[in-house]
């Protein structure tokens, strides 16, 4: 079953496929709308999130603004989903980075490979003063 993003009265309704959008990204996106809109997330069916925005009574919007808002919400959902992909994919490397940065050398490793010189002398024989 397909769902159409729409403006219903003064409510913006957007649908998101659960296999494409993470729950985290939807909530992170809606966080930024919470000061001006009533936000709502529910399941339209088992594979689809239904996301709703309703202007607060002290923040009425025109039909033209509603169109723009719909477009903004659609775009923001994509942006936050992409951000969520990066956050989750890079979580381990970020943890490693922070651990290394705040360690006192216990996680340091020697760079891979051997030190050599193409001209042929043995760099290991160079004595440091």
């Amino acid at each position, binding site marked *: 079953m397909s769902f159409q993003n729409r403006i219903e009265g003064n409510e913006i309704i957007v649908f998101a496929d659960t296999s494409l959008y993470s729950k985290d990204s939807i909530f*992170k996106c809606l*966080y*930024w*709308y*919470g*000061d*001006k809109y009533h936000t709502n997330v529910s399941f339209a069916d088992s594979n689809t999130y239904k996301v709703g925005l309703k202007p607060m009574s002290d923040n009425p919007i025109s039909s033209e603004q509603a169109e723009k808002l719909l477009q903004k919400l659609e775009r923001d959902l*994509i*942006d*936050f989903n*992409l*951000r*969520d*992909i*990066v*956050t989750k*994919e*890079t979580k381990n*490397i*970020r943890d*490693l*980075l*922070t651990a*290394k*940065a*705040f360690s006192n050398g216990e996680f*340091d*490793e020697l*760079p*891979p490979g051997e030190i050599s*010189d*193409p*001209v*042929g002398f043995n760099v290991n024989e160079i004595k440091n003063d």
Partner: protein
Amino acid sequence: MIDAKPERKTRKFKESNYYDLKKDGQYFLLPFRFHRITTEKEIIVNEVGDFLILPTGTYERIVKRQVDKETDSELYGDLIANYFISEEVISPLIDVLATRYRTKKLFLNHFTGLHIFVISLRCEHTCHYCQVSRVTQNRDKYDMSIDYIDKGIEIMFKSPNPHVTMEFQGGEALLAFDNIKYAVEKAERIAKEIGKGLTKVICTNLAIVTEEILEYCKEHEILISTSLDGPKLVHDNNRHKPHASSYELTIRGIELARKILGHDRVSALMTTTKLSLDYPIEIVDEYFNLGFQGIFLRNISPYGFALRTEKSKYDTEKFLTFYKKALDRILEYNFQGYNFTEDLARIFLIKMLSPFNVGFVDLQSPAGLINGVIVFNYDGGVYATDESRMLAEQKDFTFKLGTLNDSYNELFFGKKAQEIAEVWANESLAGCSECAFQQYCGADPVHNHATQGDMYGYRPNSDFCQKNMEIIRYLIELIESDQRVKNIFQGWARTVNH
């Protein structure tokens, strides 16, 4: 028979494909964040603040692995070289990146440096926005006692920081000059004994400064930090002194202090009030004409303005308009060949364009309160920041860590400090954790509490967030639009003190 010519050994660079270790073009993402700058451009920022400005849609292509090593070779190279992607799961240069991250967090290395002694709450000014000072002769009640000065000094020297700063504030600090002398001499003696560096600063409006006081400051290498809100009209309206012009007294004081201490031993700070918002050019000109090397355009303090209302957003937007006009004026001076900086922009630019960072209380993460600055109030109360003790004057003791009678551990690592520590890193705050400007910004639990009612804060209607996001975005827009501005900003970014 001719022998084959032996292959000549050389250190010349090999062809670029020699270094291509990943022929299949697969890449892995490193941590980075993104933000739309304009409809045409977006920015990506990595974990150490390096950024790339790219055409809209590039971020999506990067994440979806659509950047091709052959056809997008320039972009691909930039992404590799700037630590946005890696050809191996763990970049072989992870240690380099970790070292750079460590450098960005260097301000954490030594713990508390700035120790503010509110030496007296008494003042001879009646500034309308000041909610702290008292016009009174009651020394016993409003001056810091010798006992508390001793305890403050003792705690200051317990800081693991090898170089501490002792800053005297008020009220008007010079009203308690005898106590300042006592504190300076005692601190100097101890610093010498234990081998710690010591910087001394007096924050004063200079109205009652004398040659004798300044000669003492010269002898003891004390720096002077004063307040100057702009030209006479603005300054005198902001800073009311009964039966006198505060502006004229300040200017006289600055001249005298420069004459005795030296030009660079006197600095000035401005506070932007509603009135100031109408005079961006005049305020910048005032600082320039007085021979200062720059100005810090500080936004409206939330302690005198009701920021919880919608009016606040109006105020923040007005401040941003003011800020941009003033910054444009400052850039004009730079175009004419003068080195004149704006300090808020300079802080951001150091984070954006240099490998370093600046320890500035609300523009760092973890925030600078407690681990960068501590305040000893005149009555013995110990507060996390200067703003915290101002809240206390309004009977809000949320950021009171204890008193000077408490132990170092109780104050710096106690329950209250732990509670604040939960919310002092923007890496873990909603709205900030995935913000592209996270590395350039900071956390300010005190401001959040004062303006929004809780330390954690709510970013969608936070004036702190609105202001910083827009200023950073504007700086990037300027960098992108004019090479001359970029060169000037790179110069400002090199002025880091580390």
